[in-house]
């Protein structure tokens, strides 16, 4: 089956450094296979730029199979572009039409400052995790894996929450720049499991405090995060985070 290759116009955000003024550059690309991924299309663009003696577009990417959470582009007004439940690396060019103009922007949020071009700094997520996104156990000296049975529905729900890849699409797409979906996914996962329940109150308070301190916005339940989350993490996790946090606070 022969498919028509695409000729495209790309409007890409270029920014030299964190403190420099950014701007859009327009590039035209020819003969892109609809079977290639969005990042492979970006590779072709970069190859073209290098051959023209220009600097290639810097963008984050690594595993290119939708799990590491490194890729992060806002494509035509949507985090990870116009396909459901995929990351940018799994977005394929068949979602676009010949002659399309594609706008590519970095995540824009005060919590994720731009480092260069389409690369942003998401270290705030790590800081939130360091504040409490763990179970306080040291290596060794733990009970047998089957010592505490966990109801399958709880384990499954914890797994759904744990599927978060930390890409930052939720913050990027939220009109409030809120990190609640990310925080709630971790809080929910650990609150649902008996191993994590022990310090659930402490964890919820610590992670929310860190999230607020880092300047992320407040959740207003628009649900944009869930709609754009490549892993479909549900905002009912946010309800659970709210519950955990408020219960913890009322016990103080």
């Amino acid at each position, binding site marked *: 089956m022969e498919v028509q290759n695409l000729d495209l116009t790309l409007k890409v955000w270029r920014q030299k450094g964190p403190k420099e003024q950014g701007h859009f550059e327009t590039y035209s690309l020819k003969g892109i*296979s609809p*079977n*290639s*991924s969005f990042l*492979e*299309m970006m*590779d*072709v663009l970069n190859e073209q730029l*290098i051959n023209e003696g*220009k600097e*290639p577009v*810097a963008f*984050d990417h*690594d*595993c*290119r*199979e939708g*799990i*590491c*959470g*490194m890729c992060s582009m806002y494509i035509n007004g949507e985090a990870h572009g116009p396909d459901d439940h*995929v990351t940018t690396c*799994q977005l*394929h060019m068949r979602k676009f039409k010949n002659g399309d103009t594609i706008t590519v922007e970095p995540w824009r949020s005060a919590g994720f400052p731009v*480092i*260069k071009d389409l*690369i942003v700094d*998401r*270290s705030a997520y*790590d800081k939130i*995790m*360091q*504040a*409490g*996104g*763990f*179970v*306080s156990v*040291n*290596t*060794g000296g*733990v009970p*047998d*894996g*089957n010592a505490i*049975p*966990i*109801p*399958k529905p709880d*384990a*499954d729900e*914890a*797994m759904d929450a*744990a*599927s978060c890849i*930390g890409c930052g699409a939720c913050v990027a797409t939220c009109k409030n720049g809120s990190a609640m979906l990310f925080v709630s996914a971790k809080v929910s*996962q*650990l609150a649902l*499991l008996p*191993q994590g329940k022990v310090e659930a109150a402490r964890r919820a308070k610590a992670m929310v405090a860190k999230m607020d301190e880092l300047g992320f916005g407040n959740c207003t339940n628009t649900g944009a995060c869930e709609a754009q989350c490549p892993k479909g993490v549900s905002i009912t996790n946010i309800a659970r985070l709210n519950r955990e946090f408020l219960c913890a606070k009322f016990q103080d």
Partner: protein
Amino acid sequence: MATLDSKIPEGHLFEKWSNYKAHQKLVNPANKRKLDVIVVGSGLAGASAAASLGELGFNVKCFCYQDSPRRAHSIAAQGGINAAKNYQNDGDSVYRLFYDTIKGGDYRAREANVYRLAEVSNNIIDQCVAQGVPFARDYGGLLANRSFGGAQVSRTFYAKGQTGQQLLLGAYSALSRQIGKGTVKMYTRTEMMDIVIVDGKCRGIVTRNLITGEIEAHFGHAVILATGGYGNVFFLSTNAMGSNGSAAWKAYKKGAYFANPCYVQIHPTCIPVHGEFQSKLTLMSESLRNDGRIWAPKKEEDAQAIREGKKKASDIPEEDRDFYLERRYPAFGNLVPRDVASRAAKERCDHGFGVENGGAVFLDFKYAIERLGKDVVEARYGNLFQMYEKITNDNPYETPMKIYPAIHYTMGGIWVDYELQTTIPGLFAAGEANFSDHGANRLGASALMQGLADGYFVIPYTVQNYLADELHTPRMDTNSGEFAKVKADVQAHIDELMNIKGTESVDSIHKRLGHIMWEHVGMGRTKEGLQEGIKQIQELRAEFWKNVRIPGNANELNVELEKANRVADFLELGELIARDALHREESCGGHFREEYQTEEGEALRQDDKFAYVGAWEYKGKDVEPELHKEELKFEFVELKQRNYK
């Protein structure tokens, strides 16, 4: 020739690790914080080692090139992690896991290391559960298992199709806890450029800050490399784009031996290459072979018609389908080990029976759907089918998947002794970066097991044994002496690259290297092919140093420079792989020399000549490396030809 001392402890196989732990040296808690440990890499091995050492009280520095330690490529492992829990009461035991791993590795791994791996496998599961890893469970609330290739028991623990992710996030959470406590200092977007050796011992590393381009030196009483495998020598692989062999290669050039580089695993079920701009290959889990049937057209004209789009898979009648695995290996059928399945697919395609540009065969679920119903198939493989459809736009419920083998994992790596210490004192290697546990072929679900075993349960003991003698070594000034010299060398290396100012992009040269490797050092290797490969790699390397183009500056975020640094090393590493493959005149596991096969086309080992670990020593630029042999003694298992018929 220096002798390789593997430092295997005394005693019966079952007691070696216990004996070691009982007699090793320890560091008292007050002294631990006076000792600095550097961990390079934050995957399963690196994160778990850094976290565990931090918990013990050592002063740890951990480095990764990604923007967060949570991104390392361990995250992409789908299937599961093995452990000898015997929760299923199906006859599993530590010994059986040990035996399966030795046999699966085609009898080219060190017995003592593999037994220790099997021994600590159970602790890993307990540890991960305690961390909140949401393993799959049965309705009774207990842990569930699935089966994997190369084993007769169900010992694989899993978390949906994202086991690697969940285990890595568990290790990452332990690491995050230590970073929060201040015992571990994390350096993200920082790439290791070289190691620093002072008076014969590894004392630190030199790094490049990937955002500012700054070259920095870091001191450590010990350095642990947990930097993964080198599969990206082949350009197209299932590795992450940034996965590289540079840390291991730099260690090799500073005196660490590199063992068995030719043992490269080729995974049989990947989504085939679709075009010249393809950047990476995506794996489809081994578990698919439980219910999918692999076939190619029986008639060459059918294959050609499919390639030209004149026929579809469904147009081929039953009698014209060649289920070649079932035909050749009736006992194991579609569930033969990875190396066997890969070679069989290549054999079909080489003879003109491939589809999709000639580089693919079918993995068909029609029969499973007829037998089990669509619902059951969806419940088992739904997420994988969805992923396949996103990438290829084909619906695997209706039309068979197209698959082809791809580079997946490297069993070879830095040579380490029983303590995971390299030939450079104070330099350790863990996880895929070392060569130690998988022999010539790795079994499914064993990579996660090895990474975590090394990081959680081996390194914290063995590094401590080394550090006990380092109490009186003061922290060194990283602005002078050997540190300053290595920094200057690194700077000179970068300047040299930046000053080439040629015309070819790094990627285009990397792609050409990949073609050479796949063509001459790939699935089927011959003496002539390997010699030709070596020649071509040398030519390409010369071209790289004359003609590569790196735009931008070195003192800023420069992705092309990062890639150039890595490809420069791949261009040397590729040659060593070919050399090792050339010298190993036998076929075993992932290494298949076409001259050494049985009449039926199976791998033929030469145990009398090659039952050793081939460890290469660097002798200088453009000088042939020297081979050292560590004889493998099999006291507890009997060497046999693998038979899957």
